[in-house]
């Protein structure tokens, strides 16, 4: 790879990384994001119940708050 090609790849890489940096919506452009189907949890109550069940079952291993080691020693 020549010096010019390296520079070309570098510039293209930086341009691609910066491509989405200006995409943050303004305060008045959040209409579509505010739709219920855009929520992480479409049903917050159902999500809370599921999380509670998961926490109860997996509390010994830290539930969702600790990264698992997979040793199987709980």
């Amino acid at each position, binding site marked *: 790879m020549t010096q010019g090609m390296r520079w070309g790849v570098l510039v293209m890489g930086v341009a691609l990384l910066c491509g989405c940096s200006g995409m943050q919506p*303004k305060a*008045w452009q959040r*209409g579509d994001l*505010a739709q219920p189907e855009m929520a992480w949890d479409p049903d917050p109550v159902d999500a809370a119940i599921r999380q509670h069940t998961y926490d109860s079952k997996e509390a010994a291993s830290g539930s969702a708050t600790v990264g698992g080691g997979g040793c199987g020693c709980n």
Partner: protein
Amino acid sequence: MNRVLCACALSLPLLAGAAETGQPAPLFPALEAQRGKVVLVDFWASWCGPCLQALPRYEALRQELHAGGFEVIGVDVDQHPQDGEKLLKTLRLSYPQVPDAQGELAERYAVNGMPASYLVDRKGQVRQMHVGFEKNDIEPLHKAVAQLLEEK
């Protein structure tokens, strides 16, 4: 060269015309039509919960103080204008509404949250800016409007 750059940098806010307390409010036809009145410019959208709480309260405030020279201008920033229009049919607000689906006015006022309201005095200067809405916000707003209405 540095002086030129500094001058350019300092003039940017003027070119952008962003609303700032103590500065003239960026003009648009509906606001110009209310010249000499105390005006609350309210940026709202149908998808914004606090906006929906604010709209009927602003209507009540307007009903109470309109005779003294107070007006509200609603700026609907819904990107799908039919959503805002549908809501307005149910709310039946008496004050003027300006559609701003492209967000041009919101951009000029540099709105940074929803709802955003700008209280403009009789001389056309922004005297108060507020982002968000809670029920408790109405009382201080009422006082501020009453105070501005006394100014000639």
